[in-house]
C-alpha cells in the first residue's frame, strides 16, 4: 500500500485529469461515493453521526492488528464521495500515521471552492472525528 503522501498524490492527479470542468468533477466525487463498502444498517444510529455536518454522516472505527479500520455512510452522494476519499487516505493505518497525516490533497484539488463553505466545514468535522478515533485507539494500544 502506498504511503499517505503517495495516495494523496494519486488523488490529486486523478482530479487534475478532470481539469476545470466543475460538473464532471462533482459527478466524479459522487461516483467515488458509490465505491464505499456497505455500512451496517444497525450502525446508522444517532451516536455514530458526525456533529457539524449538514447532511447525515455516520462513521465507525475498529482496531485491527494495530491499525484503524473505518466504515462510513451518508445520506447524500457527494458527501459519500468526500468521505470515501478520506477513507482511501486514512484507512488501515496506524494511529500514529493518522494523527500525523497532513491532508494536503484537499487544498491541492481546490476542494473548498468546489464544494462550498458548508460542505467544507462538514469535511473538516469528518477529519476531526477520524483523528479522534485514531487518538482513542492510540491511547488504548499504549495502555
Amino acid at each position, binding site marked *: 500500500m502506498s504511503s499517505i503522501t503517495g495516495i494523496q498524490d494519486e488523488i490529486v492527479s486523478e482530479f487534475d485529469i478532470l481539469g*476545470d470542468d*466543475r460538473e464532471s468533477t462533482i*459527478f466524479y466525487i*459522487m461516483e467515488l461515493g458509490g465505491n464505499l463498502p456497505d455500512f451496517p444498517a444497525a450502525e446508522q444510529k444517532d451516536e455514530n453521526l458526525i456533529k457539524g455536518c449538514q447532511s447525515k454522516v455516520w462513521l465507525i472505527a475498529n482496531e485491527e492488528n494495530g491499525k484503524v479500520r473505518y466504515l462510513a455512510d451518508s445520506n447524500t452522494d*457527494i458527501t459519500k464521495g468526500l468521505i470515501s476519499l478520506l477513507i482511501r487516505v486514512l484507512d488501515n493505518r496506524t494511529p500514529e500515521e493518522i494523527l500525523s497525516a497532513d491532508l494536503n490533497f484537499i487544498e491541492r484539488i481546490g476542494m473548498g471552492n468546489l*464544494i*462550498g463553505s458548508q*460542505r467544507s466545514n462538514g469535511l473538516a468535522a469528518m477529519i476531526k472525528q477520524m483523528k479522534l478515533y485514531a487518538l482513542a485507539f492510540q491511547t488504548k494500544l499504549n495502555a
Partner: protein
Amino acid sequence: MRFDINEIRGLFPVLHQEVHGRPLIYFDNAATTQKPIGVIEALTNYYELDNSNIHRGAHTLADRATRYYEATRDAVRDFIKAKESAEIIFTKGTTESINLVAKTFGKKFIGKDDEILISTMEHHSNIVPWQMLCEEKGANLKVIPISDEGEIIWEEFENLLSPRTKLVSIVHASNALGTINPVEKMIEAAHAVGAKVLLDGAQSTSHLEIDVQGLDCDFLVFSAHKLYGPTGLGVLYGKRELLEAMPPFLGGGEMIKEVTFEKTTYNEIPFKFEAGTPNIADVIAFKEALAFINSLGKSQIKKHEDELLAYANELTKDIKGFIPVGTASNKVSVLSFTINGMHPFDVGQMLDARGIAVRTGHHCTQPLMQRFGIEGTVRASFAVYNTKTEIENLAEGIAKIARIKNK
C-alpha cells in the same frame, strides 16, 4: 414600460456575470430577488446626498430624508391599495411583522382556550410566533390540512373555524410549493365567525395584484427584498382600528408622544410601532423597487412568470426520476421537486456547477416537508428577468442529473 426582456435584464447589474465559467442563471427568487439599478442608485444617492436622521430635524437634510422616507410609505399604501399611509408600518421584514402582531395584537386579544388557525404550508415564521403566543396564553394552534397537490382542504378549514377562532394567519402564496391560497374566500369565512385574518404576503406581493381593502384582510405582511427591494426591510399593514387598539411593540424613541419618569404616552400610528431610528436608506430605496414593478405592471409580470413555469413544467414532466412537489392548479412561479434516489443538496450543488442558482432543503417549512414525507426539495423560483433559454438550461441540467440514478 412595454415588456422587453433584454431591457429588463439590462436594469439588473448582478445578472451579468459568470459563475464557474457559465452565465449566471438566478432561480432563487423566492429567497430574494435581485435589485434593479434604480434601487442601487437610490441607496448610494441617499448616503451621498441626503443622509440624515428623520422626523423632528430642523435642518434641510433631515427634512429631505423625512419627505423621501414618508414618500415610500405613500407608495406602499398605493401598492397594496390601503386606505391611508398611517396603516403602513415599516419593520425589519416579514418575520418581524408577524412577531409584532403576535406580541401586540396577541397580547391584547388572544386569551385562554382561544384558537389561532394556520395551514400546513406555513413558513416557520408564521408558525413559531403563534406557538410562543399560545404557550404564553394557554391558547391553541390549529392547523388546516392540505391535499397531495398542496392545496388547502376547504371542508377541513370550514370545520376548524368556530367562535373560538380569534385569528387566521395564512400564507397567500406558499414559498415551498407556489400554491396560491383562496384567501378572498378564506377571509370572508374567517370574518363570519368573528376571527381576524393575517395574510403572509412574502411570496405573493411580487407576483399578484394586492388590494387590502378589496380582500378585507386585517393584516398583511411582506418583505421588501423579495420585491426587488433592499434587505432588512419589511411591511406590516393593519387596519387603523386594530393598530390603534394594539399596545406598542418596542419602547424607545420615535414611538412616544410624551415621556416623564412617571408615565409615557404613545405616539400616533404608524410611529407608535416604529421605535428607534428606522432603516431610512432602505425604505427610501424601496420606492424605486415599487416604481420598477409598477412600470411593468403585475399583469405583465405574472403573465411572463406563468409562461416560464408552464415551460418548465413542460420540459421536466417526462424526465425519468423527476418528482414535482406541489401541483396546485393556481400557483406562483415556483418549481419545487425532488429527483428519485438523490439528495436535494447534491442536486443543488450539481446545478450550481452549471451556473444555476436554486435553493435546496426544507425551505423553513419542515411540517410541510413532513406532510409530503420528504426531507426537502430543490426549488427553482422564477422572476421577471428570467428567460425561456434559462429554463431550457435548467431542464437540461435536471435531465443530466436525474440520469445518474434513473437510467
